[in-house]
């Protein structure tokens, strides 16, 4: 099957800064694809180029076969793009905002009631249809922005950090809408700085400093940090961490509240070194358990392995 989105050596420079460095990946039709990385990794720049609102300085991307480099306007009919500052009209009501975007994208009047009903069902915004957009909470504004972006039922949805600054309840609601769209076949590329959100995606591109560090399913990425990490509880977590950081087989040790999370070179082989090291330092272990590595553990493993960070 032909890719819905095909990114080929996509690059963008700002003066001396290489914000995006030769990215290449394909997104299959109907895939939920995550672009994940911290601030400054190049996520927003990448999505802007895919949306046809910023020209690449090198490389190209094809969206449904249309080139963003040579036909940025042609791309726009195939996509919905929601940036972090999506333009809502705060002095229009919820429904008037939908009308505005429906006009802009020339959605036939006869089709509007059914589309609005569907969007209201996902977003739970129906009860607020007559409220001014300016009087909605941050999470509700995000949902309205997403609804407006979807009003022309595009084939590809581009979401730039839709959950930035949104509380966990609204964040869940937003993801629910995204999952609904994907379940109905829409190809979706979503960026986020929150690694825990990446687990919701079919595949994830981990970006760091403009480069693609890894690209795979969340489960495959998790395995990059080994089959498990060890969580150790002691009365002195900081001291325990420092002791463990001095152990050769320990790749990472970090404090989380009362626990130290330990990533080992070879967990099955090396698990006993933790108890030995702590016993040697006179620190009793109160509780110990194995846990799945998080994508954060993976990220740190990849970054530190590359020797990028001091």
């Amino acid at each position, binding site marked *: 099957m032909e890719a819905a989105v095909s990114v080929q050596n996509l690059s963008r420079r700002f003066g001396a800064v290489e914000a995006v460095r030769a990215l290449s990946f394909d997104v299959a039709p109907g895939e939920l694809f995550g672009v994940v990385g911290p601030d400054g990794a190049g996520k927003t720049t990448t999505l802007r180029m895919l949306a046809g609102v910023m020209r690449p300085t090198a490389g190209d991307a094809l969206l449904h076969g249309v080139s963003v480099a040579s036909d940025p306007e042609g791309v726009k009919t195939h996509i919905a793009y929601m940036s972090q500052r999506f333009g809502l009209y705060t002095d229009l009501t919820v429904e008037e905002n939908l009308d505005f975007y429906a006009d802009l994208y020339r959605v036939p009047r006869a089709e509007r009631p059914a589309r609005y009903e569907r969007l209201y069902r996902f977003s739970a915004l129906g009860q607020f249809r007559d409220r001014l957009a300016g009087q909605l909470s941050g999470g509700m504004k995000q949902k309205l922005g997403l609804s407006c972006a979807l009003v022309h039922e595009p084939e590809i949805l581009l979401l730039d950090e839709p959950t930035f600054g949104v509380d966990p309840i609204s964040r869940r609601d937003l993801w629910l809408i995204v999952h609904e769209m994907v*379940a109905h076949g829409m190809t979706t590329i979503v960026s986020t700085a929150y690694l825990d959100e990446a687990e919701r995606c079919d595949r994830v591109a981990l970006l760091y400093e403009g480069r693609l560090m890894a690209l795979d399913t969340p489960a495959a990425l998790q395995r990059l940090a080994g089959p498990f990490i060890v969580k150790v509880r002691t009365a002195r977590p900081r001291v325990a961490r420092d002791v463990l950081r001095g152990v050769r087989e320990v790749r990472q040790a970090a404090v989380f509240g009362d626990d130290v999370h330990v990533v080992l070179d070879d967990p099955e082989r090396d698990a006993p070194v933790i108890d030995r090291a702590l016993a040697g330092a006179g620190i009793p272990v109160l509780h110990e358990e194995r846990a799945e590595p998080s994508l954060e553990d993976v990220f740190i493993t990849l970054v530190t392995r590359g020797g990028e960070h001091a």
Partner: protein
Amino acid sequence: MPDAIAVQDLTRRFGDFVAVDRVSFAVATGEIFGFLGPNGAGKTTTIKMLTGLLHPSDGTAYVAGFDVADETEALKRNIGYMSQLFSLYADLTVEENIQLFAGLYGVTGPRLAARRDWVLEMAELTEHRTRLTADLPLGWKQRLALGCAVLHEPPILFLDEPTSGVDPVSRRHFWDLIYALAEEGTTVLVTTHYMEEAEYCNRLALMNRGRLIALDRPAALKAQMTDPILEVATDDAPKAIEALQHVPEIVEAGMYGRALHVMVTDEAAARASIQRTLAGAGRRVEHITVIPPSLEDVFVALVRRGGGAVVG
């Protein structure tokens, strides 16, 4: 040792609206205490009262021993505050920013020199002291902002989403510094929407609709979640979720990627019902697995149990 923060029946009304409703909790010296809640939960109003920016309508709160209702000047000298949208001046150098905060906090003379060196060393910016703040990577700016917030050695430090958006390596580095401060006796109160930050706290308080609805260690909050969560993988998630709508053992079901996450009352009974219902609807079940609840699952469940978040 007296508590670093002692809050008793703290209440704030705006007209008829009760933004904070008889909230009580205590934070021990050197503790890292997380404060969570959806928008409109009363979190910001509580923090404003604890930092002396807003007068309580009722109840009491003592922060570092000062009454937040009438010792606000002394209170402000004894707290540090840092937010994600920190107040560093981008067109000043690292050292000039430190100087500026020293002036604001009345840190002068030999103490200033000592504290400046301490901040530079703590933030690992000694060699970059003359660089413009605007040119620093985000993680470095956050360390500098932290240094400026504790320049006057406050016993209490307030952090508002301090590491939102930074890469995990910088975040862990930042939290290493927070743990070091806490070990030396600084009490830290963190407000955040992000579970990635909440996991670093010793204890978490969860607010909703003006009330404190949970307060415990992160692991204990997860353990107290008695309703198991099942991951159900099928050939068609939206159709499966529709089919499962009236299964009595299901508390809540939502899509999570291609799978469903289903909160149930009784694992064995729910497994059987789900299998039966999905088979009856012609769906193929690939697997049903119990998954450990995330802090976010706990948060959402507690908020929903408490009548849901304020919407609009």
